[in-house]
């Protein structure tokens, strides 16, 4: 029996890299070189098989199909503490649908309610802050545009997602808010100088989301980290040779809170586990 059973829910919209991180995480756990190690063998790793095979061939995995929701139980341990890690795989469209329809499916509701920690994956390059009348002034405002629909800004969507999750987790249970880890994914495409901290990037790119998190989670219960699950951008047209010869388990890195890079992709989970137990 594990000494602690930890349920972690992973949230993120489409194309933030949830499946790639899942597959890479399993590779690192099996390699037994990180902060988290496998505790025995997982019963079924089928959900990530396709992505893992693609990565071994140096190409990206396919997009998770919209209706998919699977959970993979990963028995792991950290500093001698056994943890049952439930790692989900689903298409990001389900998150968009949740926001659009404004209803939380019962299956999602149960997952949100039972999770001890949340990972919110955000791909900064895909959620630009954009310019407005203040950042890029215009001498004369144009007459109001009529008829057009206003698209919700990415950071407002992310705040709304967290608000929905917070509401759902507490509406029936009254439980304490789960600890939160924000993972800024595909960090390699940001081309930030070495040493840049993930918190700095969050504040610069998504200031409203950063404020919301800072004002709703205590310092001990929130983490902001950077992640490049594959280290480089992969394309189907030209397979990456490093993945083929060195193995996917040698690729990818995490940016720790102090801006230092670490090849240990289990670090976010270990940090979140510590925050949950804090």
């Amino acid at each position, binding site marked *: 029996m594990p000494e602690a059973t930890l349920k972690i829910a992973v949230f993120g919209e489409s194309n933030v890299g949830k499946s790639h991180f899942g597959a890479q995480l399993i590779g690192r756990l099996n390699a037994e070189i990180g902060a988290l190690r496998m505790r025995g063998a997982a019963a079924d790793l089928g959900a990530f098989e396709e992505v893992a095979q693609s990565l071994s061939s140096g190409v990206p995995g396919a997009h998770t199909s919209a209706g998919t929701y699977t959970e993979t139980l990963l028995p792991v341990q950290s500093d001698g503490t056994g943890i049952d890690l439930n790692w989900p795989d689903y298409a990001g469209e389900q998150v968009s649908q949740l926001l659009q329809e*404004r*209803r939380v499916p019962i299956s999602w509701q149960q997952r949100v309610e039972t999770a001890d920690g949340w990972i919110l994956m955000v791909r900064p390059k895909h959620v630009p802050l954009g310019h*407005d009348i203040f950042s890029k002034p215009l001498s004369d405002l144009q007459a109001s*545009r009529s008829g057009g629909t206003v*698209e919700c800004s990415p950071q407002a969507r992310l705040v709304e997602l967290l608000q929905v999750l917070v509401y*759902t987790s507490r509406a029936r249970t009254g439980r304490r808010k789960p600890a939160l880890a924000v993972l800024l994914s595909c960090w390699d495409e940001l081309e930030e100088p070495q040493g840049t901290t993930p918190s700095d990037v969050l504040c610069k790119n998504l200031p409203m989301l950063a404020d919301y998190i800072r004002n709703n989670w205590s310092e001990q219960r929130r983490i902001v980290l950077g992640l490049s699950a594959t280290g480089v951008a992969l394309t189907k047209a030209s397979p990456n040779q490093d993945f083929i010869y060195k193995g996917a388990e040698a690729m990818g890195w995490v940016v720790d809170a102090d801006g230092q890079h670490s090849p240990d992709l289990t670090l976010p989970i270990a940090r979140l586990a510590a925050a949950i137990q804090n």
Partner: protein
Amino acid sequence: MSRQCSHPACLAPDELGCKVGESSLQQCKFWQSSRDAQEQTAAAMPDDGARLPWTGNAMGAGDIGFLSGATRTRLVGIFGVAGSGKTSLLGAWYLLIGRGTGPTGISFAGSLTLEGWENIAGNLRWTAAYGPSFPPHTSSGSGRHPGLLHLDLQVDDGRHDLLFADAPGEWFSRWSVRREAEDAVGAAWLSGAADVLLVIADSQELAGQRLGTARASLQSLLRRVGAERRGRPVALVWTKCDVQVDEQMRTAVKNAADLALGTYETFSVSMHAAPGQEPYNRGQGLLELLDWVVRVGDATFPKKALPHPEQDLLQIVGGVRA
């Protein structure tokens, strides 16, 4: 949908949420036991999950109860004629807060009306196809209450819930002439419920071709607000202050405000930075005004007793829920 809940006081599915507090109608025993439920078993209602009790859009009367009683909610009423910049002021505040450029010690902590804010602030953003434009005219419709936009702000070490009324200017034009006007009940409600009142002086109109009419309208509005304020904090806000207003006109407005309001604060705001101002990306006066709106002390003014408070939840927003 014809099916109704069997709980006598529950309006599901016509209202958001469940009367007994279940987050999903499917989990409510009253809903399950409703007569129609049996009839519709064959139709196999899909798992519709838990509806969220807020829509994200501007709030109406039915939504206010969702605001928790953890902190006191402050209602900010913005009084000004159509086109004077009320909605733009709200959009500008939201953009600045969204950029993390709030007044010192004040930052975003949540909102139940993000979609409503986005709808008005979206026009002030650059898109691939358009530059910023004025937010669309706030429709007067036939509503009895203005749309309310919510902000939860972290203010130093505490939290403040604020509601901002985005009311159509036509209401105020009618209300300033006739207090009980049938088509201005929303303005009358706002004047009774607001905790902080802002009266808008439109610099562009007061310097434009119809400046005389604009001055007269503003004076009427100031007199009406002055008569209704009951000791609450009031500010005179010159919008579009990058437009130069003749000194004689400024004096006339100031004299009218002195006469009607007595004590009040004055602010000048614009989305355009003053020439040479650094940093440029915060307009003029907007943060100072927001800071005042958030921090100005609550006046201890008597609230009207409500014979039927449950019929007008909005009426109790301004202070009674403390």
